[in-house]
């Protein structure tokens, strides 16, 4: 198949007629008549660039159409004639946008694949520690969910649904051509980024082969701009506040009333009770605070035709709403690019350091401060009269003590450097050699100090606190060599590039935990050395892992008459993670696009209003290798110990046939631009099927294992994506535009292990025909007013019963949001600009585990949800809360909630000083701005924050930051 197509292309290429041609000259200028240097002028036979004065000379037949392109301008066409003058129209959202795929770049116009480009400008200044969160709602098909309000916490990104069940669903992140780790962005400075290119379909991701199945996010960093040096300084400052919690807990009166009504378990006397009622502590006030954000960004950019440079430095300092939690980041970057002769050499170097203070999150551990703050009784005082932490009657740990008397830090040092060289062969025009080598070095240091007075410290070995320090190092290098050839003959543009790539990553880790922190030191000096007579025996651990990937691949492009486009790529990957039998795999794609708006039969009648109309289709296969550590195919023996002797323990079962997950995607798309691109949009349909899914095949437990990993099963993600940008008003002084996008992704399991139609795991079921992460719980049917029993629906959904039986479990929707997107509006009046952006998620269900703990009457010793004040007490009482001695079962629909939300994600107001006022002060530009983040959220979910990737709010949630900042940007 592939071969036939290749031959076909070459045949076309060879049959081009050479026509009589002259050298015709002309000039390219902008609408104000300024010459445009470096614009590309293309005739049927050759392409040339304009000189410093905008002049050019091109071989062409008089009367043929010439195509002129220039970055930032809309494509211009002109009939070839001597002395022609081309005026190009500027367009901020230009059709000549370039899509960077990491290996190649091509004009969006010619792209056959499904990609979205987000300019870094769009998220500039957003006061978030991890930039991925700011991408929420910005691109169709891309679901971004923040997991935490902890400064610097990464979001989870899923592109076009989850395509793996037990393998990774993280997209591949590429910066300047090399892979960087996903979910690891606190040390990166988004102000260094030029744009994000999100690759979604097979045509654009197949070139990443075995790493492409979850989509690819290609990030390019800023390059110097030709011209005088420009120094830019950005400063912003602001504060974050706690959002409201829809899950209300009892106040002192409610809680004491409840306790008395349920047997007074603490045996309060009337006097004690009266005293306690006076206390009423709001633990949120004690625990949370206002966070502060401060950011300084300095950059220097400039260059000449030979060398360009971009140098930046940044400081980002954010404190969270939970006391003590913060992020401090320091970054520096130097990007250099120089051209000499036929060579172009570029170096991009970056170093970033982040320091995060955080707290325990995402668990139901009683020692987690974020749990204790919900669970503590309101009649407890936070401090004793002499200022010490009070002792909590129920035995719960003190949230503030657990927070302030422990340290939980993660420090990261990250260095990313790439060097690339390009050589344009002078002996054959269009032949280019390129090499790109780079490394991502990440050093993570974790530090946990637990004071001996805290609960966490008291449960450590030896019960006298602990101190843990760990160092993890990751070095991943990527080297890519390529030879490319591009040529144009008449109506035919043809390009081919072949690549070879090597990627290797080495991870080493070391950690120790010391015990017996009996001195006031909060570092290694506090550790009591372990002896045979004390129990402070420290633990140490370490590991080293190497993985490799070797690839050969090729990319072919063909364009005919600048309106028919074909792209094909193939890739062969070898991975060290699989056994000899299944080490290598092939991937590839083919795609085509048709620019209908260029056809005469369309443009003849639509010249005035249709700027772009493109149809595109692609099909291809990509893979996923991200499963179970470095050696998922090998039966392993792990170290073990018994009574001081060493041992070898069988820990994994092998499957030498384990191999790649494969995902084939079909994509159809339409792109359009109307009325001088005042209305622009895209619509895409995709159907992606993952086969050879990594799945745990259940085996008889008598083997000592419950399952092992195989490649069985299939899953489909099918959906539509649409995006629309409308400039409602576009005048000189006033611009009003609106934009929006929506994705509807339908996930469906097609085949499971051993022909099974369903597979239950915990509260979830995998069922053929149903989406992944479908809840499988017993449905509740209210409370019997006569008895106060919780009523359940039997499996048929018709009968109610007061007996809980797992046999009555039914499917109750999925935790993965099928519908999501964002919408916004931008106003620009003279120098004032206002951007408002909302993001939304719809159609997902969330299991509220916080509620399960707060509505369980067995936990009456601690604080409970206010809903329990309506507990059933007397026959005939109509309520949703059963009687307290009714057997409590958590795995029911009672705790399933609608996870949909709409969030006012970002509001940005700015004022740019007119340059005329600044000229005297020798300032190039001056801008004032205010940014609001997460100002408002509308949801039915009862809790801090509905934004959850896992579907279950286990507990200890760090609410999202609601941040308002103000800043200034000066250019010199």
């Amino acid at each position, binding site marked *: 198949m592939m071969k036939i197509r290749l031959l076909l292309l070459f045949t076309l290429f060879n049959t081009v007629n050479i026509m009589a041609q002259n050298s015709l000259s002309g000039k390219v200028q902008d609408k104000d008549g300024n010459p445009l240097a470096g614009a590309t002028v293309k005739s049927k036979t050759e392409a040339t660039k304009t000189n410093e004065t905008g002049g050019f000379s091109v071989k062409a037949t008089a009367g043929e159409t010439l195509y002129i392109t220039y970055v930032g301008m809309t494509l211009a066409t002109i009939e070839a004639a001597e002395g022609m003058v081309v005026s190009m129209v500027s367009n901020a959202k230009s059709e000549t946008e370039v899509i960077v795929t990491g290996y190649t770049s091509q004009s969006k116009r010619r792209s056959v694949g499904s990609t979205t480009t987000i300019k870094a400008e769009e998220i500039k200044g957003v006061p978030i520690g991890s930039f991925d969160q700011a991408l929420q709602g910005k691109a169709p098909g891309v679901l971004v969910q923040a997991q935490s309000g902890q400064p610097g916490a990464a979001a989870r990104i899923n592109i076009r649904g989850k395509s793996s069940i037990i393998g990774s669903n993280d997209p591949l992140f590429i910066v300047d051509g090399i892979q960087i780790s996903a979910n690891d962005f606190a040390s990166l400075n988004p102000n260094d980024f030029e744009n994000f290119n999100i690759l979604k379909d097979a045509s654009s991701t197949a070139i990443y082969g075995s790493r492409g199945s979850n989509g690819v996010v290609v990030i390019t960093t800023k390059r110097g701009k030709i011209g005088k040096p420009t120094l830019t300084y950005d400063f912003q400052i602001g504060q974050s506040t706690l959002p409201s919690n829809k899950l209300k807990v009892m106040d002192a009166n409610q809680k004491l009333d409840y306790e008395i009504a349920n047997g007074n378990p603490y045996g309060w006397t009337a006097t004690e009770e009266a005293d306690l009622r006076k206390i009423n502590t709001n633990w949120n006030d004690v625990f949370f605070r206002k966070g502060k954000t401060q950011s300084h960004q300095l950059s220097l950019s400039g260059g000449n035709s030979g060398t360009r440079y971009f140098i930046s430095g940044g400081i980002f300092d954010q404190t969270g709403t939970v006391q003590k939690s913060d992020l401090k980041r320091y970054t520096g970057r130097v990007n250099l690019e120089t051209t000499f002769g*036929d060579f172009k050499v570029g170096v991009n170097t970056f170093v970033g350091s982040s320091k995060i203070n955080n707290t325990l999150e995402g668990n139901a551990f009683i020692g987690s401060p974020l749990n204790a703050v919900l669970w503590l009784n309101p009649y407890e005082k936070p401090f004793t009269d002499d200022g010490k932490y009070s*002792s*909590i*009657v129920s*035995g719960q740990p003190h949230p503030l003590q657990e927070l302030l008397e422990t340290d939980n830090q993660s420090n990261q040092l990250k260095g990313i450097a790439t060097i690339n060289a390009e*050589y344009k*062969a002078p*002996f054959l025009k269009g032949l280019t*050699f390129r090499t790109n080598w780079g490394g991502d070095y990440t050093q993570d240091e974790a530090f946990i100090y637990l004071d001996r*007075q805290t*609960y966490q410290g008291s*449960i450590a*070995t*030896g*019960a006298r606190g602990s101190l843990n320090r760990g160092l993890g190092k990751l070095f991943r290098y990527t*080297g890519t*060599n390529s030879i490319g050839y591009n040529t144009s003959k008449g109506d035919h543009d043809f390009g081919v590039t072949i690549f*070879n790539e*090597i990627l290797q990553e080495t991870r080493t880790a070391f950690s120790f935990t010391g015990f017996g922190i009996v001195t006031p030191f909060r570092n290694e000096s506090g550790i009591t050395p372990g002896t045979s007579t004390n*129990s*402070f*025996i420290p*633990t140490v651990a370490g*590991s080293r*892992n190497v993985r*490799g990937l*070797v690839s050969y691949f090729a990319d072919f492009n063909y364009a005919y008459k600048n309106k028919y486009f074909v792209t094909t790529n193939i890739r062969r990957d070898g991975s060290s993670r699989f056994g000899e039998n299944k080490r290598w795999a092939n991937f590839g794609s083919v795609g085509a696009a048709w620019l209908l708006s260029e056809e005469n039969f369309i443009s003849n009648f639509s010249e005035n209003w249709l700027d772009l109309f493109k149809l595109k289709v692609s099909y291809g296969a990509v893979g996923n290798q991200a499963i179970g550590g*470095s*050696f998922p195919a090998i*039966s*392993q*023996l*792990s170290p073990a*110990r*018994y*009574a*001081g002797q*060493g*041992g*070898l*323990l*069988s820990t994994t*079962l*092998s*499957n*030498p046939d384990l191999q790649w997950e494969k995902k084939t995607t079909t994509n159809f798309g339409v792109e359009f631009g109307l009325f001088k691109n005042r209305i622009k949009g895209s619509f895409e349909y995709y159907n992606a099927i993952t086969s050879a899914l990594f799945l745990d095949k*259940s*085996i*008889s*437990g*008598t*083997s*000592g*294992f*419950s399952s092992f990993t195989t490649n069985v099963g299939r899953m489909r993600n099918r959906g539509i994506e649409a995006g629309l940008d409308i400039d409602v008003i576009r005048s000189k002084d006033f611009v009003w535009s609106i934009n929006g996008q929506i994705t509807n992704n339908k996930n469906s399991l097609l085949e499971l292990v051993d022909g099974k139609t369903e597979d239950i795991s915990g509260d979830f079921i995998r069922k053929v025909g149903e989406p992944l992460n479908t809840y499988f719980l017993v449905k509740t049917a209210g409370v019997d007013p006569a008895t106060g029993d919780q009523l359940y629906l039997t499996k048929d959904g018709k009968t109610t019963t007061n007996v809980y039986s*797992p046999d009555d479990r039914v499917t109750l929707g999925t935790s993965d949001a099928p519908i999501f997107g964002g919408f916004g509006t931008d106003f620009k009046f003279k120098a004032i600009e206002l951007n408002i952006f909302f993001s939304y998620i719809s159609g997902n269900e969330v299991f509220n585990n916080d509620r399960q703990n707060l509505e369980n009457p*067995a936990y*009456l010793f601690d604080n409970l949800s206010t809903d329990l004040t309506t507990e059933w007490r007397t026959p005939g009482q109509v309520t949703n809360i059963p009687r307290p001695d009714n*057997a*409590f079962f958590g795995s029911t629909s009672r705790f399933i909630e609608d996870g949909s939300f709409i969030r006012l994600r970002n509001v940005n107001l700015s004022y740019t000083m007119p340059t005329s006022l600044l000229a005297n002060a020798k300032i190039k530009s001056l801008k004032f701005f205010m940014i609001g983040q997460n100002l408002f959220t509308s949801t039915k979910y009862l809790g801090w924050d509905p934004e959850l990737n896992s579907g279950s709010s286990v507990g200890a949630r760090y609410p999202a930051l609601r941040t308002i900042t103000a800043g200034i940007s000066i250019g010199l």
Partner: protein
Amino acid sequence: MKNYKILFFSFITILSVSLESCKKVLDQKTENTFDVFDRFNSLDDYQFALNATYGLFRQANYFGNGSTGAFSTLPDMMSDNTVETSSSLGNYVDLANWVYASNTDNIQNTWLAAYAIISQANLTLNGNGKGAALESFATNNQAQVDRIKGQALAIRAMVHFDLLRYFALNYDRNSNAFGIPYLKKVELTNPKNLPTRGTVKETYDNIETDLLAALTLLSAYNSTNRYNIDVAAVNAILARMYLYAGDNNKAIQYASVAITARPIASISTFPSIWKDETKEDVIWACSFNAGEGDPAANLYFANGNRSSYRMHTSLINLYVPNDIRLNTYTALVRSQSDFSGALRRVVTKHWGKGIFKDNIVDWKAYRTSEQYLIRAEAYAKRNGAGDLLLALNNINTLKSNRISSYIPLVGLTQAQLISEIANERRRELFAEGHRWFDIKRTTRTIDRNPDCTAASAAPGVACNIDPTSRSWAWPIPQAEIDVNVNMAGQQNPGY
């Protein structure tokens, strides 16, 4: 032009060099683990495999705590020896209140933990099928080969017996009720084995065969630190097995060997047993050290000062004032994490080694006093000439080593003896993983009143279970039935 050529060729060279290194990039070896098929070419590896088998006893679903602790604390939590308190986080209520079903995770996890030990024991016996066989080292190292093989066989038998204790309907030696799949092979790649339950009789047959083989192989082996199963331990396991199976003669025979080999601890050394300060009275203990979990925090979590299960009043009342055991096994400790609350009686039997109170302490799986109780019970049940007196003597010996100024019991009838032995088992073996099975094999009745309804008890503590309850035999995990067609019709009745 020449320059270009040089550049061009150097470029091609770079490309080729990188291609050459490809093979190296792909050939990565495990560094922190071994490929199982690269090993078992030395006797050392068999010894390592055996050591790891012992390590698996510390799993949180076997002797370890933090999950079910199925063979350490759980049998007491499920019985009338303890009652769940209001401090409990309720993680094991489904087991302690007998409301389990075939999909109860705690049961599935226990099943897996036990078979993980069996599988590792079989790896110790069979190797990986590719390297040298264990037997092949016998020519030069007969003694070590025998020791490895004997211990692995004894472990395999004992763990199967433990499973039988939970999952079998009854313990009769020749019972045709469903037994437990007896695994003698290990599968390291794409496991497909689907065993069947067989009968209780068949399970006993296999257990007996393995234990008797182990007895021969270990006849000269004494574990001085008591951390390994030696000749005395195999005798003790046999005695317990025969008592359950109702073979009184053999129970007496093997218990007697164990008692002779490992004399009972006196009243003065008795408290030291629980601090790991003496090996007296200990026949086999599973070693626990810092960082390896602990065997009893589910009852009383010392570091967190959380008493989830306390001793039942009916048991407290069974101790006479001079009995050293009540205050060795329990203590009055103030509540609150800073010990500022009210005094309450907590289980401190497994408080820690020496002066430590961190629950890190060896799990005494087999003790001499149990052997006395086995022998007493077997005599009492056999009830031949002089047997009742012998039974009484055994009880009196045990009690005189636990109660100061003890006045021996005299003239008990068989029924009185049986009752006295049952009570003595509660007093002596409290929180050692016996009570649930003892009730199961005798009265099959539990009454937790009045403690179950006390204000300090956890809400919803179940009070009673009657002899006909399905709960006396655990259900075979649903996950097992789902994948194993050979066990599809072999679920226990009522599930």
